[in-house]
């Protein structure tokens, strides 16, 4: 019996280590699921701890992964607040009744687009930042080929960009789905698909992650990468030789959102975080974290490098309609059938 005994001993030891209690705080604690980049998540949580004395446990995952997690945990939720990540999965969570309604007193300080995001979901989510869609190109590669700098969506289907454009796969990435929906809203559905079929010939790869094309353009792996512009700004600030383009026909945008999870164990602390995260001071932390989205609080400072909405022709993106699961499936199925299956 020796071997199994030892085995159980080891298991016991492991389990005991796992069960050791965390230091309890007088202000209570809070579990946050964070879906922006790590170096933005950390200072946010640290600042909230300093401001309130509430102990924060933070888990960082991409928004799709967090959504999957919240669905899987629905019976016995572990998280309290879901902060950050593109708006679509937040709206989906609201539709699926995974998040709860909360009308923050801070709503009056927010931009209209952030409040609209909240209204569309019955106040189950709220906008915390926004970022426009666009693309970035690698300057040395462009000069080497002597191609005129692109300015519009229409430029990307020109023959000189053959095999030089990279975008994410809308099946896996919210970014690429936003682009799909944006083009349909600008051009109408049939012309948009004609455009996408033409673009398909110039695409060298459909990446799985939405930010990957920005990185590929920065290193020169591709000439043009279609992404949210703030992802490209991050590359540029880090010294990559890229230029950003907000297409001349107009473009769509994402609203990064925040929701309180249904069945949150620390509801009071979750609400305090919610209110705090909407303040100008909390949103000002983004710039230090090299996140160049537009903050949703009207009084929050806008990072000087951030692509400003005034300089971009933004379309009136209908999040309720294009975030709907059925519309999404229909668009994606059509894209899969008519665009992806085509010859390059």
């Amino acid at each position, binding site marked *: 019996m020796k071997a199994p005994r030892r*085995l159980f001993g080891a298991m016991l030891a492991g*389990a005991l280590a796992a069960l050791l209690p965390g230091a309890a705080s007088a202000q209570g604690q809070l579990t946050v699921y964070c879906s922006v980049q790590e170096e933005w998540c950390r200072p946010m949580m640290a600042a909230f701890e300093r401001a309130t004395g509430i102990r924060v446990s933070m888990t960082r995952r991409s928004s799709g992964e967090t959504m999957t997690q919240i669905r899987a945990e629905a019976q016995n939720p572990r998280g309290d607040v879901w902060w950050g990540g593109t708006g679509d999965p937040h709206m989906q969570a609201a539709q699926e009744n995974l998040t709860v309604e909360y009308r923050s007193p801070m709503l009056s300080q927010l931009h209209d687009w952030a409040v609209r995001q909240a209204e569309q979901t019955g106040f189950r989510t709220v906008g915390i930042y926004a970022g426009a869609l666009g693309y970035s190109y690698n300057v040395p590669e462009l000069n080497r080929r002597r191609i005129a700098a692109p300015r519009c969506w229409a430029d990307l289907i020109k023959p000189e960009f053959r095999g030089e454009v990279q975008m994410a796969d809308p099946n896996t990435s919210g970014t690429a789905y936003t682009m799909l929906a944006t083009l349909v809203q600008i051009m109408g559905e049939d012309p948009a698909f004609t455009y996408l079929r033409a673009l398909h010939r110039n695409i060298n790869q459909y990446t799985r992650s939405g930010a990957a094309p920005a990185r590929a353009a920065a290193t020169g792996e591709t000439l043009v990468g279609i992404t949210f512009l703030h992802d490209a700004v991050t590359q540029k600030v880090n010294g990559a030789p890229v230029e950003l383009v907000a297409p001349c026909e107009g473009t769509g945008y994402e609203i990064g959102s925040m929701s309180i999870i249904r069945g949150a164990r620390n509801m009071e602390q979750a609400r305090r975080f919610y209110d705090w995260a909407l303040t100008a001071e909390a949103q000002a932390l983004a710039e230090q974290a090299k996140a160049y989205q537009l903050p949703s609080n009207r009084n929050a400072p806008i990072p000087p490098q951030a692509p400003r909405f005034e300089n971009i022709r933004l379309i009136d993106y209908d999040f309720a309609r294009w975030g709907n699961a059925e519309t999404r499936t229909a668009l994606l199925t059509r894209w899969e059938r008519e665009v992806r299956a085509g010859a390059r």
Partner: protein
Amino acid sequence: MGALSLARLALLCAALGLLLPWHGLEGGLSEATAWPGGAAAPLPALLLGGARWWLWPVLALLALAALPVLRGRAPGGTLTLAGAGILAWVFLMGEAIGLRGLEWPWLAPLLGAPPPQPALGWGALFVLVAAAGLFSAGIAARGAFRADAFIAFLVAGSALLLFLFVFAPLTTILTAAIYDGERFAPDVLAARLAAPEAWSLACLATHEGCGVVWNTLLLATLTATLSTAIGLFFALLAVRGGVRAAPVFRAMTILPLITPPFVVAMALIVLFGRTGIVTTFLWDWFDIPRSRWIYGLPGVLLAQVLAQAPIGFLLLDGALRAISPSLEEASATMGARRFTIFRTVTWPLLKPALAAAFLLGFVESLADFGNPLVLGGDFDVLSTRIFFAIAGARHDPGRAAALALLLLALTFGAFALQALWLGRRRYTTVTGKGDSGLPAPLPRGLKLGASLVVWPWMVFTALVYGIILVGGFVHDIGRGDMSFTWRHLVTAFEVEWQGGPALRGAAWDSLITTVEVAAIAAPITAGLGVLLAWLIARQDFRGRRLLEFMTMLSFAIPGTVVGVSYVMAFNVPPIELTGTALILILCFVFRNLPVGVRGGIAALAQIDKSLDEASATMGAGALDTLRRVVLPLMRPAIITALAFSFVHAMTAVSAVIFLVSARHNLATVYIVGRVEAGEMALAIAYSTVLIVIMLAVVLGIEKVVGRAQIGRRAGTSAARAAPATAPVRAGA
């Protein structure tokens, strides 16, 4: 061990269990102070208080078993009934009455409206272990397992564990394949399984991509073949080729094994991407046009072979060393030429190891997630497709489950083929008989061929690892900014001195958890794996094949599916584990178990059963034989299992991405976040640290456990310049 003594031990265990808190302590040990009341109440207190009246049968069944045992009898039927009854009752009631009270409404007439029942805790664990013991004692008393209660307990216990942590979670999630939303729809399953996204053959005729099943099969077959071949060449040169660079060899081949995911893929991009170092060099000097060939099948294949070839080498190296030279010597004495000896003696004896290496390569390629994710380009395989079916923009668990079933089918197809190829022939070469001789040297042509493969591959590996080593210490290797910096390491592993070391770096938490979890999981995996291998290979009992199948199951399932199924299965009572380190440990143990089992079975296939029989003839029980005969001979397999499970626990990604929590984050999940944000340099720097740790541990394990010592007569030929080793002590 007799049935009675096992039954007594089991009762002791149950008595302990009745003293410990019955339910799990959510608030940690601070709640334990409430004992024997409150949240920490043991079962008797709960029963007497009336709060858990539906658990009275547990106590009744225990008493039923205790009465005869205390009088020194072990009635098979009673013990079996009591053990099985307790197990079934506790779990059924745990499922029926959950956190919200009654979960199964159709039981309302019987149970009324019971209060909520939280998850099982330490007391329950001990009682359940005891129940398994009583059950095993019972069936052993009735004559099963040749009346050996120890074997019975091992089999019953491992079957129970496998059922709980492999089978049950998987059925939970795989049933999603047959549901369309909430609707039960078998026709949907058929449509999903036959979907053109999986089976389309369009790529043969048109520009469209082929179905994802074909892609996966093609990639896995290529990876398995190439990595087995390269591993074989390495092993031949190392064992029979008289190459003096053996330590370098080992180090070089161990490196890919201990590499975290994504790093090799990233290094390959840095080298061969369109703006990669090698690509730019070829373009500048030889005008070879730059292309993106690395994104797609070639890139993924390259990365997978880099990772798999060393595993092939480890397996084949062990097998080659264990082949008794006497057969080869006999062949040589009869005048066979070197190549004939190799073809007719060595090669056939290598077959089980070759099959094992091929199978492992195949299955690992099927399960690989990191490389296709980074390098796949438009080339889609099942593992990534499944991940994005679950976590992508279009959430479709039904489709994911159907694809997972296809992946499962592929894996078991591979196992079936292996069984078919090996047939029923015997491959025993380590026997108790006087066993000695000189291993045949390698045929010349073969040696030349092997060298032509091995040395360039070594250079290639060195190049890739050179990039990884450098990448963590320069500003941005992806963009060619090669100025030296400590920046990335400081960000990750800063230590501040404030009257004592304070760990400020962003990566410390995840690193410490990772090492802890891996260190706990590895010995459990190796121990359980080797035990199971011994049971499957050496004990004859009904359901043996089923047990083997269950151990292989978790390997065959893509990590994402395992991860999500664990969250779904262990987030609510009766077993509530999410957010703890225990769920990570369990996940690793049962996911890496197949490696220990397969390695153990392969090792046992070469150890003659007559040794066991000799031990049994001289009066040793199963336990003694295991401890004193089998285990010492299985050292190589144990080392491999230990090292492998440690390393795999440190580098797993897709399975744990949904299991990590704020308190227990893992290094790989942290790295994934960095890669997503495009911070390759930091990811590479962190990976370098992981590599150093794993290298130290793997070498340490080898030092402590020791290398295989199967006695052979020392060689005197020039080809084998090894110093004289111990005299013949085969089978000792």
